[in-house]
């Protein structure tokens, strides 16, 4: 039996009266990619900070590489790499100086960290900018440098806290490809994200976290199956009809339909797809509601998220009210 890369057992962490993590338990197997999915304030960053020895849990146990985060913090630090949500690279140093410093602090020999810094700059398409100060870098370049810094020590376990938040799609794809390459070389990855597609693309397994608790877990397909069936999606032509349309189709689902006024849309998890589609179409037509679109689709992780947490994943409005005021989380 191979020991797990990360084991979290009933970990709780509170900031003042705000509970950031409540009795969270999870395991990341060696070589696995696990995504923690959740809105701002869900507790994702708090968990990463505990596992990277930056924060001590109030109760519960956490082990990284079979080492206890409190007793063996230093030994853990030589096993892990951390790339943060806010790129923590030194603005006044050049890209190369940043990487060489981190390499030195991983206790690599000088010739070794110089070589690795050089290679990392090439690999991250930063070779041309390597000797320029980081303050002249774009957001994407900074993020790539931050990731490169976390990899200088070739850590077997990598923690990525929202690695692509705020990046353009191309840079995002580049980073995804790079992370996949690391995984193929035997790196275990625990990442947090607010993006469904990112979790679906990168992760072997997904844990949905909401206000400090695990609300669902499994592979992307498992999570979709847990919803049971499909999603009925309606777009009305006239926004005024939205509520009436939702009321009409409510009978076909077991939970309340979800309204999205911006898209003039209603979506509803349903079972028995074809029959429901026809019945819904007939009911809407009989009431004289004009439609732009009517379809049955497989649930997305977004639907999973909305069903399990009652609110959207990356909807900033919802997230903002749930973030911890002044807290260190996100």
């Amino acid at each position, binding site marked *: 039996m191979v020991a797990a890369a990360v084991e979290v057992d009933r970990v709780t962490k509170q900031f003042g009266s705000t509970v950031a993590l409540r009795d969270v338990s999870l395991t990341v197997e060696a070589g696995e990619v696990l995504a923690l999915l959740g809105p701002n304030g869900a507790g994702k960053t708090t968990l990463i900070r505990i596992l990277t*020895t930056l924060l001590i849990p109030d109760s519960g146990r956490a082990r990284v590489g*079979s080492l206890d985060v409190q007793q063996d913090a230093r030994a853990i630090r*030589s*096993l892990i790499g951390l790339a943060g949500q806010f790129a*923590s690279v*030194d603005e006044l140093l050049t890209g190369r100086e940043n990487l060489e*410093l981190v390499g030195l602090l*991983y206790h690599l020999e000088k010739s070794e960290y110089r070589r690795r810094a050089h290679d990392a700059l090439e690999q991250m398409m930063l070779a041309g900018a390597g000797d320029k100060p980081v303050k002249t870098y774009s957001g994407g370049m900074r993020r790539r440098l931050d990731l490169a810094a976390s990899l200088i020590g070739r850590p*077997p376990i990598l923690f990525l806290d929202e690695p692509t938040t705020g990046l353009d799609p191309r840079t995002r794809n580049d980073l995804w490809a790079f992370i996949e390459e690391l995984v193929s070389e*035997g790196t275990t990855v625990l990442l947090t994200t607010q993006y469904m597609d990112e979790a679906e693309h990168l992760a072997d397994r997904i844990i949905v976290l909401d206000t400090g608790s695990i609300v669902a877990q499994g592979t992307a397909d498992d999570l979709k199956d847990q919803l049971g069936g499909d999603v009925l999606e309606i777009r009305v032509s006239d926004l005024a009809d939205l509520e009436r349309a939702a009321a009409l189709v409510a009978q076909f689902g077991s939970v309340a339909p979800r309204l999205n006024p911006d898209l003039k849309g209603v979506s509803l998890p349903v079972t028995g797809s074809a029959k429901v589609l026809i019945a819904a179409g007939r009911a809407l037509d009989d009431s004289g509601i004009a439609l732009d679109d009517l379809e049955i689709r497989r649930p997305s992780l977004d639907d999973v998220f909305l069903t399990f947490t009652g609110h959207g994943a990356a909807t900033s409005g919802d997230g903002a009210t749930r973030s911890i005021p002044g807290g260190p989380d996100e």
Partner: protein
Amino acid sequence: MSDLAARRLSAETIPLTPRLALRDVRGITKRNLLRILRTPQLLVMSVAQPAIILLLLRYVLGGAIHIPGVDYVDYVVPGIFLEAVLIGGMTTALALAQDLQAGMIDRFRSLPMARSAFLAGRTLADLARSVLALFFIIGLGLLVGFRFHNTFAACLAGIGLIILFGYAFIWVYAAVGLAVKDPQTAQMAAILPMFILFFASSAVVPVATMPGWLQPFARNQPTSDVVNSVRALFEGGPLNPDLWQAIAWCCGIFVVFFIVSLNLYRRTA
């Protein structure tokens, strides 16, 4: 794939030897020195501020201040030397708060480096800057008429005491920066005690000229003991008991704030 991952997980960790810890300190010191060199405006500020106070006291206010038995320039300039190293320490608070806010401290704390190396590297780089500022102000002091009157060794000891005092206070500012966590607040929090310690002491005028309620504080705080000792070392005169008190203050402040800062650094969230 998971076999490879498991094998990589079981890698041995390198034990932290004193040699590696010193190497960490060197690495962090170099980083901070590069940062100091690349923000010349801060460097200029930390020299210009004591220079302005020096010129102000020498040429604007100094004419109205008479201290029996000593030239005012010889009285006040050693005080300005202390001010030069005190003001340099303020940038320690600022720099640490900046590192906290930028997430740099998270990065360093997640690395297998020696924990004390981060603060040691910070304070040593700041000490280098303070010493640089001190030598500049000594040069300016000599230009405006200040003179060393004692033996070379005694003057050297005086400069050594100023540097010791400056280094002890860098640790005070380190604790301030780590405690307040916000660069603007750090600057404000650092400037007030600095002014109180500097002006409510015998650095600028003798304590005996101050109101009665202020005298006990002004007489018994570190700046006064240090500046009295430094004057005695530069100009000749009795050293007891100020010198031993001064050294005790510096060592005490250093030890207390070293421990406080290290604890704050370990616990910063």
